[in-house]
């Protein structure tokens, strides 16, 4: 059992707008950390720039609110030097996927043991309302008054394309769902991406309306659990079935579909094809742990290689290193 309560991780008074999704997420993060039970002194929370990147200032842990887009790279250095730290990297959709897109994909590819939070409100908030790389095509914003003419990223697709091994999704207002994915992310050894759907009340109000309320989620979301049948709807009247090379939602009892046809969720499957299809469903929106596959982590491998080479090589100090060279003596 954990020795900590949420208040042990809490600090200061958040300055986000009233109703901002960041408030909900922060409260869930405090609770999740308390349940995880790693001491604040052994925890580092590292963010970039943006509304959500203010988050470390409200943590009683170690942390850094750094520069735009670089949180994943900075967290990488921190984790690889001290793998015993629990390192959380917090970015918004702009910080993580636009200016920091390169670091996002490479942290996933390397599989460094970071808990990577992507707070996705599909808008630039701190710079006051420009479209982001997750804003839908045609999105009207201050910098796209006639609508955008570009397609958005789908975060799961990027994560999977970078050979990511963990992807989970939660809605900021859904505390139990958020806490669950945060704990799963911590428990997953390797880069774990949690996409948190959150609302920006000022610049993109209602962007996640379909799933933002409990009622909405009951109708429009599916909570995925590894090893369980993928049923959803207010009375579990819907299920996800396979159709040819694809999956689709069906109503049980219609078109001859029964519960026996419903697929069982497999987050541990190495092949990510169906997991990606789940992540990209527009209805229902998949929540929970979508992919959670064990793989060697970068930080473990760095240090086990160091240990292995220490055994093999005969030099372990600077003075011994010098002796490995061709040396001559002038008398």
């Amino acid at each position: 059992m954990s020795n900590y309560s949420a208040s042990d991780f809490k600090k200061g008074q958040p300055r986000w707008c009233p109703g901002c999704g960041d408030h909900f997420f922060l409260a869930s993060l405090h609770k999740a950390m308390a349940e995880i039970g790693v001491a604040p002194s052994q925890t580092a929370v590292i963010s970039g720039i943006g509304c959500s990147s203010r988050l470390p200032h409200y943590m009683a842990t170690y942390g850094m609110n750094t520069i735009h887009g670089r949180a994943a790279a900075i967290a990488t250095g921190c984790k690889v030097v001290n793998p015993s730290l629990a390192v959380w990297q917090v970015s918004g959709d702009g910080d993580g996927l636009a200016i920091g897109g390169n670091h996002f994909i490479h942290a996933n590819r390397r599989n460094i043991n970071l808990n990577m939070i992507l707070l996705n409100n599909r808008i630039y908030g701190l710079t006051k309302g420009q479209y982001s790389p997750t804003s839908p095509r045609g999105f009207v914003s201050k910098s796209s008054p006639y609508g955008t003419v570009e397609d958005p990223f789908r975060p799961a697709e990027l994560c999977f394309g970078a050979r990511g091994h963990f992807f989970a999704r939660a809605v900021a207002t859904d505390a139990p769902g958020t806490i669950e994915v945060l704990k799963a992310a911590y428990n997953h050894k390797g880069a774990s991406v949690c996409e948190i759907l959150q609302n920006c009340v000022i610049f993109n109000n209602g962007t996640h309306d379909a799933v933002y309320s409990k009622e909405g989620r009951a109708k429009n979301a599916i909570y995925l659990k590894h090893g369980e049948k993928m049923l959803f709807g207010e009375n579990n009247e819907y299920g996800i079935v396979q159709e040819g090379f694809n999956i689709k939602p069906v109503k049980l009892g219609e078109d001859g579909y029964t519960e026996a046809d419903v697929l069982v969720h497999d987050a541990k499957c190495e092949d990510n094809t169906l997991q990606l299809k789940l992540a990209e469903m527009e209805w229902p929106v998949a929540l929970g742990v979508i992919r959670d596959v064990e793989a060697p982590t970068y930080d473990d491998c760095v240090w086990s290689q160091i240990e292995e080479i220490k055994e093999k090589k005969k030099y372990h100090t600077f003075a011994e290193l010098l002796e490995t060279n061709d040396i001559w003596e002038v008398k």
Partner: protein
Amino acid sequence: MEIKEKESVVVRFSGDSGDGMQLAGNIFSTVSATVGNSISTFPDYPADIRAPQGSLTGVSGFQVHIGAEQVYTPGDLCDVLVAMNAAALKTQYRYAKPDAAIIIDTDSFGPKDLEKAQFASDDYLGEMGIDPDRVIACPLTTMVKNCLEGILDAKSILKCRNMFALGLVCWLFDRDLDVAFSFLREKFGGKPEVAEANIKVIQAGYDYGHNTHSSVANVYRIETKHKVPGRYMDITGNKATAYGFIAAAEKAGLKLYLGSYPITPATDVLHELSKHKSLGVVTVQCEDEIAGCASAVGASFAGALAVTSTSGPGICLKSEAMNLAVIMELPLVVLDVQRGGPATGLPTKSEQTDLLQALFGRNGESPMPVVAAASPTDCFEMAYAASKMALEHMTPVILMTDAYVANGSAAFKLPNLDEYPAINPPYVPEELKGSWTPYMRNAEGVRYWAVPGREGFEHILGGLEKDDKTGAISTNPENHDLMTRKRQAKIAAIPVPDLEVLGDKDDAELLIVGFGGTYGHLHAAMDELRSAGHKVALAHFRYINPLPKNTADVLRRYPKVVVAEQNMGQLAGWLRMKVDGFVPQQYNEVKGQPFKVAELVKAFEILNKE
């Protein structure tokens, strides 16, 4: 045969990229260093990885200067030029003295070779205006084939041509071959048959010289005058830099972290540090230059000696993360191995054009110490000094070297780490638990370091301005002014050694001023001027920010001062900014090549007469 005593000689090995000229040059310099000669080397690689064989762009050179007394540079022009093919003779002859001996492999001067090298006729010596009496023309390939037939396959035999040339040069300079033999046996430890084949070829080259040319050519002897007893190794600047970081981390009792992205001419530092996992060195080849620096900032936060290595274009990309380390006041060493710019510029060539970028190339008031290494071996000293400075003063430090010192090599007297100063980072004292805030400073104005993992010192740093007292985000105007001044004062207060004046320090009429990798050339120029009767002194900067305390005194002491640098006047400008009323003469050259001592001497003589 006549044996001539010489003070110093310069040998330039040149051939196709695949001809092994670097190895031949290396062995020759090691053999010479072993008898106590002073050495200085300069490899001159083509920019292309493997240009078409025999082409003009594919020529690779290695120049070594050996001296009875201290030599400071690889030499302007060579006394002996080895040209392994026609293209090498065509492109490298301009580095030869008018009376230089020239060794060529006549087997590589066939019609096709001459065509590739753009000779108009088969009278290549005539076209170049070379007196045939100065040429040791030998059918080198044929002789190597005869020597190794049946021992190695045809392809491997050709790879040994460089050793024949080496043997010939060893004969010319009366060198003992045993050292070369043991070098090769060590190098090809796993393949004794290759080692013995190479040895056979060296001996053959030596014997060829002895038998064929003893009546026509001179043999030179370079007797060591002032031996500094001790144990030595050959080291390049980049390797010495890597060693300096390793030494500093060990002294400080810290993990060494390098975040880097490959870039010429800095990559060898990444290569070198990646080898030494048995010392616990962590190297991460990052996704880009930005991540190289950013990850190093993260590593520093986590308590490592953090380093990022790059060249000028990489500094452009790292600037923002460097600035983050400035405002977070975390230790970091940023290595800039300068090359020709701007943009991609001249990637394999050397310049000093990043100085103002290092001093000022960041947004905001962003003071950062800048130090520069003066020679290949000085890279070790300055990497150590930069690490100590960063760790003890909680600041990023820029260490500047350049392609010339990074790739050049010299004899390195093995350092004894016990004799180096301790490195004591300002870890936050345990008794401050409960009252500590992130920007509390020690008596030197340095922020304390609380490394994650310590209970009771949890804190948040960041790129936003912080309150001096509480460490919380602050936009208070008075506080920002205060923090700006504190960061400035912290850097200004870093103690650095006084500027040393060499040469005629009491009565010089001309003071030569430089920084970084031009030390050798400026020193050699000063020596020549002094032996010609001029009163000249040299003040060479290794510490550029903060400047040594005696800088103004030194610069104002002499009637004439010339600042000589491989840029358009960046050090001169910095000194003018820092020393009231200081208006020096300038000697500026931006050719991507090391200074030529003879050209410096000429220019300084004219200056001195004016």
